């Protein structure tokens, strides 16, 4: 560890769990405040929240307090157990995502050998939660939202995974820490000045990953499961108070996590030239800040699209996924493989 103190396994575990528990809501709060409240407002020639705190900075505290006070309501004919479990499942998937994202040579909750595989696997759990919410709400709009979500998320798992395969082939690693190291130690045409962020070679993969992320997060242009103007709020329509907050935590926490994943795989992760890849106090302290900046850059892209584009229709989305994204991803994998063998 960074500190020269040897800790027992359970002590480390407690620290890691606490860290993830703190980081997820904080990350969500940062994302919501920066993008959803402020950037969206300024893009739409509004001011956004301005009353609570300087420039509305404390608005989330007010909102959080409001959500906590609300009564937890379930519709009369709802399947109560499933209904109350659903937001927890969604939130769980988000928490698990954060486990494998490295923010420094040692700043990672668990550096799994199959890190990226794990991340993509747990991110799919949220579909289950959404489907549960849609079914258990005993509401037609919620049901349609849940079914749309299921269809959409399954269709977009594939491009998401295939977009990552290029990176995995190029780095030869499934561990996220290994992918960061591969980028740090790489070289562009023999010049190893800034390492080799995979965005230069895997730009198609990066674009595919962003598009699939957008669908995975159910954001416009792929927000059919929520679709305010059609399904009112889709699977969220019957939720109130804390459970509604859980869905939001899940959604925007996942937005942060996916941005961090994209930053890790394509922008070099926590590494910038000058940092020691193998360890050291400075790397461990500066790494998180670097990752945060890169994550926010990616998140900016994601939210920029979110606030600008209209929504696709469900069948158009499927067509787009199967006829365009997946073939493109396969071509990308093929090209990466050929280059890997040749050079």
């Amino acid at each position: 560890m960074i500190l020269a103190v040897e800790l027992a396994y359970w002590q480390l575990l407690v620290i890691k769990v606490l860290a993830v528990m703190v980081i997820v809501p904080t990350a969500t709060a940062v994302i919501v405040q920066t993008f959803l409240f402020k950037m969206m407002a300024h893009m739409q020639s509004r001011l956004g929240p301005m009353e609570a705190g300087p420039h509305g900075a404390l608005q989330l505290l007010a909102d959080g307090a409001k959500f906590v006070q609300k009564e937890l309501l379930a519709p009369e004919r709802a399947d109560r157990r499933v209904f109350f479990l659903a937001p927890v499942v969604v939130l769980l998937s988000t928490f698990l995502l954060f486990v494998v994202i490295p923010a420094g040579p040692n700043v990672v909750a668990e550096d799994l050998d199959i890190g990226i595989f794990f991340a993509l696997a747990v991110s799919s759990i949220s579909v289950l939660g959404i489907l549960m919410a849609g079914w258990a709400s005993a509401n037609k709009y919620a049901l349609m939202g849940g079914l749309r979500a299921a269809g959409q998320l399954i269709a977009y798992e594939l491009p998401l995974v295939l977009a990552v395969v290029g990176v995995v082939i190029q780095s030869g690693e499934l561990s996220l820490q290994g992918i960061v190291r591969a980028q740090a130690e790489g070289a562009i045409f023999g010049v190893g000045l800034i390492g080799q962020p995979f965005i230069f070679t895997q730009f198609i993969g990066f674009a595919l990953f962003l598009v699939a992320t957008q669908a995975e997060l159910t954001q416009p242009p792929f927000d059919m499961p929520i679709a305010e103007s059609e399904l009112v709020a889709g699977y969220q329509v019957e939720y109130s108070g804390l459970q509604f907050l859980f869905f939001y935590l899940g959604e925007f926490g996942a937005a942060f996590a996916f941005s961090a994943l994209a930053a890790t795989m394509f922008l070099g992760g926590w590494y910038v030239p000058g940092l020691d890849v193998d360890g050291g106090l400075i790397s461990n302290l500066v790494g998180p800040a670097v990752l945060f900046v890169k994550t926010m850059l990616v998140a900016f892209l994601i939210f920029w699209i979110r606030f600008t584009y209209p929504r696709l229709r469900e069948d158009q989305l499927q067509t787009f996924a199967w006829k365009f994204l997946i073939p493109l991803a396969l071509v990308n994998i093929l090209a990466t493989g050929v280059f890997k063998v040749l050079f």
Partner: protein
Amino acid sequence: MSAVPQNQQRAYVTGQAADARVNVELETDGMTLNIGPQHPATHGTLRIITRLDGEQVISAEPVMGYMHRGYEKLVEVRTYPQVTTLINRIDWLGSFANEVPFILAAEQLMEIEAPPRAQWIRTVLFEMSRIANITLFLGDMGVQLGAITAVFYAFRDREHVLNQIEAATGGRFHPNYDRIGGLKEDLPKGWVAETKSAMDKVRRFCDEMETLLLGNEIFETRARGIGVIPPEIALSYGLSGANLRASGVDWDLRRDSPNPLAWSEVDWKVWTHPDGDSFARYWVRLQETREAAHIVDQLLDGLPSGPIMAKVPRIIKVPAGEAWVSTENPLGEMGYYVVSKGDLGPFRVKIRTPSFNNISIVPWVMKGVYVPDVITILASLYFILGDIDR
């Protein structure tokens, strides 16, 4: 209650049983989805009962009347000058345009005509209320398709037009400015120049919408070929306004009906589109907004001087008779059939509002579309609830 003959009852029951057997074996059951009366896409209280098979609409039926305020009846207990206060609440987004046809009908019965300056200013404000109305549509269509940003731009730039309407009439939403024989008062100083700069902003907004929405590929895939209304169907359902012109029917009352307003004095074009789909309806309205700004600019350049009020008796009594006047309002053809018995107020007024007919095509056009298209079509047909229910 056995009005139905027994053999018919038996036939019905056997039919039901046969249907049930088929359903069990072959089909999934349909679902009835109530869209509205409280639903964000209906921007008001319209209810559409849709029968769905999966996401596909089998049948859709609009239910109206949740906002019925009885204007036709209320008008009967008011004097002629009082009526305008009421009727500019029918289509609340382009409210001045509601007053004009009624006033024209009353003037026709009284056989007086407003002086030219009043007619020109009427036309200017008419076109400005068209802009105030349609700019909101141009943004709202974005919201219905999921692009929330557009509507904020619409509200922002519509404000310039509303400010000018307020400066001239004293009312942002409900001007109550038109009078029998002329106008309430003349334009304030500096209004012409300010309005011209507002028209520039409207034109900029149209360009912005053209790049932000109309040029967007997703918008195009969502709107092209969705809700196609052929011209003969459009005519048979009594569609009017941009909905009709988007089906390729070149019909605009501003040009095609004799009216004392100043449209014939300026140079402008009626826009049509051959496709008849949601995209065409958006496109036609966008061009119309530009054209309206162009009309306003030309009218302001040539604004005649003179009085704004004709000689009208202090107490207005309209001679007995009947008159029908309709104009090309922002939403389509709006007309008043006024029956007078020589009293202070009208004996009976029939109000023909465009949205009522425009929405009546919903069952025809929504057969077989998907649920998201229901919203696209509703948005592109563009109705105002107050205009449907009066």
